[in-house]
């Protein structure tokens, strides 16, 4: 056998060729994603029809025909309804939102005292932002300030009656202030309650276990409105004569109890995901129950369920809108209350106000869900099997 039988041997790798023209560029993308087959083409046409039908209407209504400023209802009504717009006009009445913006944010909180909720909001953002950025150090101190110190400071600032601040009764609170404070305090209370309930549910002591199971499953089985009814009608009956709760506090108790049951289930999921070896390892080190849970199991379990906790928080933020049924005015409640204002009653007012409220809720919830997805990706390092 001679080595020169083969006439030619390739000694270097072939150079990479660009993909054929049918596989790249805009045309290939369109062919792949829009007109791949007959059915696909029909769907695309249908989709374009929907977009072309809906989008211009929305843009016209919300931007082009919209009224941005104005003193009263005349700017948002047509001539036949007693306004200045031509007949057949439809457009968003952002002037209504503009005029009522202060109320939507603070309810009937006294105007000269509104710097107090604004200050609380600034403090909240100042503490929240470093909490959310993973690289900023001193998370423990930050969490302590955010979840323990801030609520206390906020309580004195918002309620007043001390340090020379005039007292503001909670019935005067309203709007986004109520929505955010209810859900934030709710989460701060329901997280430790949820942890206790979840530990109780996994406890080996039968009585404690069954108490926790009954509480969790009962609360999860009934609507929040029933819990709020319970808190607003039955709690006063439970207390001795003369002792009474503020309505805001009652709503807070209802919302916290409700969220605690859901939180407990989320945390139980985290506890179950921790391998048995961790529990046994802690036992073999001679740690007691609370040391084992506090130092070994819970730090890992809570880290695992951060997305679940954020989801519960999103649900809670959305659910606080139900307090309007026990006649408290959160953001949605204030918006709805203002439909009745004769100064602004137009056919466009309800839609505009509700879309504004929806936008605020959407911004908050969407932001949180995106952040939770980001955390999920960041923490997605261990435990994945």
């Amino acid at each position, binding site marked *: 056998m001679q080595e020169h039988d083969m006439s030619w041997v390739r000694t270097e790798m072939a150079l990479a060729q660009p993909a054929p023209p049918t596989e790249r560029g805009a045309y290939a993308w369109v062919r792949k994603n829009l007109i791949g087959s007959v059915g696909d083409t029909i*769907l695309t046409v249908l989709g374009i029809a929907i977009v072309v039908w809906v989008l211009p209407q929305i843009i016209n209504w919300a931007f082009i025909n919209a009224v941005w400023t104005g003193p009263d209802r005349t700017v948002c009504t047509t001539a036949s309804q007693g306004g200045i717009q031509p007949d057949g006009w439809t457009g968003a009445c952002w002037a209504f939102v503009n005029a009522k913006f202060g109320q939507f944010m603070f309810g009937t909180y006294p105007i000269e005292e509104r710097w107090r909720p604004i200050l609380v909001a600034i403090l909240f953002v100042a503490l929240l932002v470093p909490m959310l950025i993973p690289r900023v150090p001193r998370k423990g101190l930050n969490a302590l300030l955010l979840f323990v110190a801030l609520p206390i400071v906020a309580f004195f600032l918002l309620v007043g009656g001390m340090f020379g601040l005039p007292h503001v009764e909670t019935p005067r609170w309203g709007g986004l202030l109520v929505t955010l404070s209810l859900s934030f305090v709710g989460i701060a209370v329901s997280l430790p309650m949820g942890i206790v309930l979840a530990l109780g549910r996994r406890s080996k002591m039968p009585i404690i276990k069954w108490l926790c199971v009954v509480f969790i499953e009962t609360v999860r089985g009934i609507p929040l409105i029933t819990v709020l009814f319970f808190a607003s009608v039955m709690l006063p009956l439970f207390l001795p004569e003369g002792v009474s709760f503020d309505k805001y506090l009652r709503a807070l108790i209802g919302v916290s109890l409700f969220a605690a049951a859901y939180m407990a289930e989320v945390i139980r999921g985290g506890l179950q995901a921790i391998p048995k070896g961790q529990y046994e390892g802690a036992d073999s080190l001679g740690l007691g129950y609370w040391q084992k849970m506090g130092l070994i199991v819970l730090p890992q379990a809570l880290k695992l369920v951060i997305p679940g906790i954020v989801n519960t928080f999103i649900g809670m933020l959305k659910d606080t809108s139900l307090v309007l049924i026990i006649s408290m005015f959160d953001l949605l409640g204030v918006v709805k209350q203002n439909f009745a204002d004769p100064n602004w009653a137009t056919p466009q007012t309800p839609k505009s106000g509700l879309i504004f409220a929806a936008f605020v809720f959407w911004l908050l919830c969407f932001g949180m869900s995106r952040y939770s997805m980001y955390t999920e990706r960041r923490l997605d390092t261990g435990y994945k099997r």
Partner: protein
Amino acid sequence: MASQEILRGEPSRGSFINDPRIRSLFFQTLVVILLFSSIWWIVHNVIENLQRLHIASGFGFLKSRAGFDISDTPIAYTSDSTYFRALVVGLLNTIIIAAAGIVLATVVGFLIGIGRLSQNWLIRKICTVYVEIFRNIPPLLVIFFWYSGVLAVLPPPRESIHLPLGSFLNQRGFYLPRAVWGDGSWLIGVALLLAIAMAWFVAQRARQRQRATGQQFPVFWTSVALIVGLPVLAFLLSGMPLTFDFPKQSTFNLTGGFWIKPEFLSLLLALSFYTAAFIAEIVRAGIRGVSKGQTEAAAALGLRSGPILRLVVIPQAMRIVIPPLTSQYLNLTKNSSLAIAIGYPDLTATAGTVLNQTGQAVEGVFIMMIAYLVLSLVTSFVMNIVNARMALVER
């Protein structure tokens, strides 16, 4: 051999304080004592408060006259009926709205969920926008949007919007033609039941034959032919006993036809559109959860895309989908209590009225809780049966 000495002896405990059994007994006794004393305290307070406010207790009030009207009554009810009957009407309304909502939400949710996995970029984006919008706003807001934003600003009855098939839409709701069945229409119902029974029988036989011989039988088309054909045949044979009662415009209102009130319509649309966004995500996760190898293996066996979806992908996806789907159904049932905000007389609304009229808050809230718990239990029981049928049967 000191260690062996210790091992052979009694396990030494420092003191009985460190015995886990005694500790657990102690803590549980403590909890029970605390629980009972607080219950006793609460009961004591409640009794005292009720006496002070002169409120009766017990469920005797259920037999007295309700004295309020209910706008939607699936069963006969007047203001002279009892409180009990009012609550039953409320419960039935809750069941109606929940059932209708579940059906609509499932259909919309599955369509959107499949759309989010479509090959088609545009459809995928439209479905994503839908899901991201509806998932992030409160359901109560969606209800108000439909109720005060859309339906309340429709034209008054005199200028009703005409829709195809003789239906109308105006401020007061949605008017549809109502089917009026004449004599002999029972035959059609019997034919439908017969057709379903026959289709089931055909399916059983076809499965047996395929197992025995490998021959397939077009079960689907046979069933369609049976279920559509037999009732149509019965309809023709019995002399077409069907007329339609069309809504007619009179001076101030529409008369006749089938009237869907705006409260029901906005509640149904809001609940099902809101829940559909969550169901869509569940369906998407379910289908994505079936590994690609399954599809490829099925294709390698020579199955075409229809059977791959029907026989391989969907049965496995359903296993992932059903448990979270159940909890969405439960959520929808619970969210139907938002009806109270727009005045649809569901269980919460009627129980709330009863509670305000009688002042018997404890009994009222208790009835509400029990009713919702039972509804939740029934829904999860049914879904557990479905789940058990779908679950993987392992050898």
